[in-house]
């Protein structure tokens, strides 16, 4: 395809009312729309982000580091990491298994299965927490049995992990299913024909092909796992230093009017979000690069 240069350089034929390309808007329209778009984004995205850091540093760096280094704050960081370290790998295994059976085989009810995998995205976070209370809570299905055997799930760490897992369960599967469907199974067939067993085929052929998609899913899954608030809030019981994740700790500090503390912990989460966005952009870029290379080789 011929490259059409749509630069702002002066056109070689400066006719009055020179025809624009059909897909090109006049300059004033471009400026106006770009201005509206950037204004909207500045107002709704950049301003809140700036507010987090601005409020966190309002009393200076000393107060900021004191708030971040607080024992309860550190305990909440630890719990958030634990919850993510369990739920993200669990959902990676689930995502890979789901994508494998959906992309590599044809069977009845496949589209229903895909819809079911998406289901947690349609459920309000609060309801995601509520359903676990209904199963494991004192009045729930398993409540009496759990009390009898002295197992705490709700208002304890296992409940937080379960609610986080529920909320983040579709992320990896959603990225991998379309990717593996598009890639097809020819390379796996070749590996099997050449004598590889199933696991060898997966580790040596499939995994290298899906690594960028997998990483992308992991980044999104992790960001949500560390930031989940509503679902975790219902099952946590808000015990300081014990069942408080970082987002819950932000809420507690905020409700105690400890604004610098709340925004300091919030700023850690905001940094995490920004790091996730940067990593995500790099992965997108690498993936596009790898695809372009694969296409060049194919030609």
């Amino acid at each position, binding site marked *: 395809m011929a490259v059409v240069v749509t630069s702002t350089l002066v056109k070689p034929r400066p006719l009055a009312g020179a025809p624009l390309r059909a897909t090109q808007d006049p300059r004033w329209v471009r400026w106006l729309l770009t201005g509206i778009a950037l204004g909207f984004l500045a107002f709704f995205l950049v301003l809140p982000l700036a*507010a987090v850091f601005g409020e966190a540093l309002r009393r200076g760096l000393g107060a900021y580091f004191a708030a971040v280094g607080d024992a309860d704050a550190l305990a909440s960081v630890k719990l958030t990491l634990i919850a993510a370290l369990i739920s993200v790998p669990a959902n990676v295994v689930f995502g890979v298994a789901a994508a494998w059976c959906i992309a590599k*085989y044809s*069977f009845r009810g496949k589209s229903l299965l895909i819809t079911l995998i998406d289901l947690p995205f*349609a459920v*309000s*976070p609060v309801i995601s927490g509520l359903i676990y209370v*209904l199963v494991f809570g004192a009045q729930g299905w398993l409540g009496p049995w759990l009390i009898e055997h002295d197992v705490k799930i709700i208002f304890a760490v296992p409940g937080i992990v379960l609610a986080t897992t529920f909320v983040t*369960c579709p992320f990896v599967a959603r990225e991998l299913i379309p990717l593996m469907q598009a890639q097809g199974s020819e390379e796996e067939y070749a590996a099997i024909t050449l004598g590889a067993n199933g696991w060898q085929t997966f580790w040596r052929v499939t995994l290298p092909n899906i690594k960028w998609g997998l990483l992308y899913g992991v980044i999104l899954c992790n960001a949500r796992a560390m930031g989940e608030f509503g679902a975790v809030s219902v099952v946590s019981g808000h015990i300081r230093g014990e069942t408080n994740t970082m987002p819950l700790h932000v809420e507690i500090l905020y409700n105690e009017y400890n604004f610098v503390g709340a*925004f300091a912990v*919030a700023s850690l989460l905001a940094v995490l979000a920004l790091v996730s966005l940067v990593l995500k952009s790099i992965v997108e870029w690498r993936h596009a690069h790898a695809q372009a290379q694969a296409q060049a080789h194919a030609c």
Partner: protein
Amino acid sequence: MSLLRKQHSVLPGFGLSLGFTLAYLGLIVLVPLSAAFLKTAGMSWADFVAAAASPRVLAAYRLSFLASLVAASVNAFFGLIVAWVLVRYAFPGKRIVDALIDLPFALPTAVAGIALTAIYAKNGWLGQWLEPHGVKIAFTEIGVFVALTFIGLPFVVRTLQPVLEELQPEIEEAAVSLGANRWQTIARVLLPELFPALLTGFALSFARALGEYGSVVFISGNMPMRTEIVPLLIITKLEQYDYRGATAIAVVMLTASFGLLLLINLIQKWSRRHHRV
């Protein structure tokens, strides 16, 4: 057909992967979700209506639906402009802006909530300039709308972007060569092409806003009958150990969300067929 089956059975692991997927999905998602429906199945109809349709709950439904609807509409309008600008125009810093679109997905909702409150509260960054003029945003319905707009922002942009990128320039050139002006090209040629994606983005944004909790509770003020959203009401009932009441409201919301999910799937199926023709 038999050939297809044979071809597919060459790869091992079907039983293992499908079995694991179904077991995991069943234990983590389906069994807990069914608990909500079974809990309400044990209630009498009158109890259910009393719990899920009391005046306070009805006021919360109204606020949640209306604020979500307005937020999704605003996102559809501005999202279309943002997607158009990002795909069609060049400007410095475009890649950063593009990456930043996903911020509401990555930023924890509680963080968004306190940040928006810090901006719009009475002595906040913007609030201190707005309140003297009688414009109150935090602790009103407008605050709820602002929070829901923030969290729904990426959906429309991200569903429209790939469709805009795939759009063939030829169809616009054809329209122009047949005598359409730019405005007619946009209204009669481009918008119908973009409409299914726009509708999908709108529905996704609306569905997300309906269930949103974290970003809203801080800025809404949570006044019963006025600025109380449905998810907050569920939490309030839970804190009062009214599990049946909470579950009854949750079932209404779940039904609404599943209906929306079905609608989104239908829109996408319809648009795929529309594109193939």
